[in-house]
């Protein structure tokens, strides 16, 4: 208990974020499961944009972690993270396997970080 309390004091920002995100996420999960009978389903106007949430959000999360814009094209492209990401992306496309994607991406990153660019 003291450990948990110490953690709470050490990172109040993180705990506020965790609780607020948790409550709102539960509200999203419960929404229609709770309301069913009173609402007949998601209105088309809401449904259409929701279809693009997964690809848009995921791409906006991934790309900035792989690409950093630098003054020259060569410097931007010769980045171990971008190369590893390209290889992992190809594996993801061929296999649709999370484990294989992570494994090839990490190994490619290490090859370029510790061997090729070392």
């Amino acid at each position: 208990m003291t450990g948990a309390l110490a953690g709470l004091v050490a990172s109040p920002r993180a705990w506020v974020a965790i609780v607020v995100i948790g409550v709102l996420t539960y509200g999203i999960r419960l929404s229609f499961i709770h309301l069913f009978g009173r609402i007949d389903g998601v209105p088309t106007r809401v449904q259409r944009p929701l279809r693009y949430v997964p690809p848009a959000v995921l791409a906006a999360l991934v790309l900035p972690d792989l690409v950093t814009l630098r003054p020259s094209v060569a410097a931007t492209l010769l980045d171990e993270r971008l190369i590893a990401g390209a290889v992992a992306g190809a594996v993801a496309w061929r296999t649709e396997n999370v484990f294989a994607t992570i494994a090839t991406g990490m190994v490619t990153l290490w090859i370029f970080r510790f061997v090729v660019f070392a």
Partner: protein
Amino acid sequence: MTVRGPVFDEDLLAGVHDVSPLMLGIAPFALVAGIATVDAGLGLAEAVGMSVIVFAGASQLAALELLGENAPLAVVVGTAVVINLRMLMYSASIAPHFADYGRRLRAGLAYLLTDQAYALSVAEFDENPDRSRWRYYLGAAASLWLVWQIGTVAGVVLGAGVPDAWGLTFAVPLVFLALLVPAMKDRPTTVAGVAAGAVAVVAAGLPLNLGLLVGALCGIAAGLVTEVRAS
């Protein structure tokens, strides 16, 4: 509707059985969530707290990254909620299957709603109408919950023990990449992804870490425009 009777029966076990191949993807994802917690300067209590209270992987990773960068709380929360909005669709789609159950059971089932539990259960309900739905769903969803919690804790231990030079947090974008590729399944969704990614890279320097949110919103708009033009 067979709400009564023992919880542990063949329908629940069928859910556990059917979800088990998916664990190969969930376990490393959970490990990465634990590693990312350490990387954000947080510890075991926050890792477990987040995995239990939020229990939604992609939003957890995004929130941890933003917390580590000291982004404003509103941006952390806003980004995570946008990521989880997709579950509104799952809730609507699975709701008719749970309509006959009591309020409390439905409230509990909703807590366990995830991409995998949803996809697996809805497919099974269509194929096997005789199944006890809540038991099958519970078998799948609770297994995912358990593996997620154990994996997060293991990730915290692992993340604390591996040197920074190995760049273990690079596994975070790799997980998203593995989810992104199948999400771009036709022209409008591909345009949404490409536009969001490009804008997010260019907007990476925006104040308040708004790049992700701006990129995602531009991507959604680009997807909608492409859809309207095609029709």
